[in-house]
């Protein structure tokens, strides 16, 4: 697991599961379809990305392919911030 994925997983546990570590969210589990996220949750997710990874999330980035699963988020952060991905931060 990369450090980015670990931070994303921690966010999912803390914010989407309200700290419930007994619930397993697979890498490709859709946040929308599993009811983990609603429209307010998407805005919170954007704040998490912008504050923690210093990336700018544009309107056109707000699509499920970028944000709807742990794997999608990890890929999105890596693509948005190659330096971060290289340093394995």
């Amino acid at each position, binding site marked *: 697991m990369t450090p980015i994925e670990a931070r994303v997983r921690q966010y999912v546990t803390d914010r989407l599961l309200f700290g419930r570590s007994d619930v397993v969210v697979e890498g490709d589990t859709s946040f929308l379809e599993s009811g983990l996220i*609603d429209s*307010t949750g998407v805005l919170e997710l954007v704040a998490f990305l912008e504050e923690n990874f210093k990336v700018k999330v544009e309107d056109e980035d707000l*699509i499920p392919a970028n*944000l709807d699963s742990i794997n999608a988020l990890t890929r999105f952060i890596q693509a948005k911030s190659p330096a971060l991905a290289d340093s394995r931060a």
Partner: protein
Amino acid sequence: MGENRNKFSPDHLRLDASAEAERIVSFIRDAVFTRLKRKGMVVGLSGGIDSSTVVALAVRALGADRVIGLFMPESDSSDDSLRLGQLLAKELGIKTFTEDISGILRGADCYRRRDEAIRTVVPEYHSGYKSKLVLSSLDSSEFRISYVVVESPEGEQRKVRLTAEAFLALVAATNFKQRTRKMMEYYYADRFLYAVAGTPNRLEYDLGFFVKNGDGSADIKPIAHLYKSQVYQLAGYLGVPQEIVNRPPTTDTYSLPQSQEEFYFSLPYDKMDLCLYGKTHRLPASEVAEALGMSEAQVERVYRDIDAKRAVARYLHMEPLLIEPIKEAVVDF
């Protein structure tokens, strides 16, 4: 011909308006006099189709002298709301009261809190500006993202994406409006020993387009089972003035004109009705798509949006949770 008899179409929502009106009238009479043990009904009038239909039904059920219409304008209300409400009340011959709730809202700092929330994303925003909340369209993404549209005193409009904090603060502040109106309705209900009507239609009730303990609160919700297009049919049958029937549905909550689609629903009400019917009756998206002239993928998106809205609505519908039931306090009719 035979195989098309049950083909899905807007006809599925066609009402026998006379029979439905009688059913609701009889329900209101029994609910108010027998079950709620009240002498009449208070209806908040917005000049919109739902409250107009409910008050017309209430008059049929209880008589004009047992129905009170309340007008509750505030600083951001459209002038049409009051004018159309008064037009209907006059036709029905009911007693009305007007309560301008702007003072209460100022006392609760509703407007200041709203403006502060907007300023976190539009720093130059001030009281001379107008604003409204809008959602991204379903066509642009499956995520429904909230934006604020602001209009400067010079008339220049700008659309800015909200942060989660700004969105929640903005909604929390504007919810004072619906809660204040309901508080006022209960004042008159207590004063005259009347019941309070809720006026949601099925789209609003099922998909959670209401404020908990605001417009979501009531003693009786006589049209919550009706799709919006059915409410229009009933309004036509009841003789609700054409000007009210023709008025586009609005939230009348923000200072800029705001349609219900841009704020909450994904589609105009007639299409949304059919999608909700299709989803509720487990019709394949392809069948609904054909009836509406939409693509199957679009209807699938609306179906998923309905699921998402119902998930949020669950909290809104929930009664207070108790450690254990108290059977003596359960009212069973």
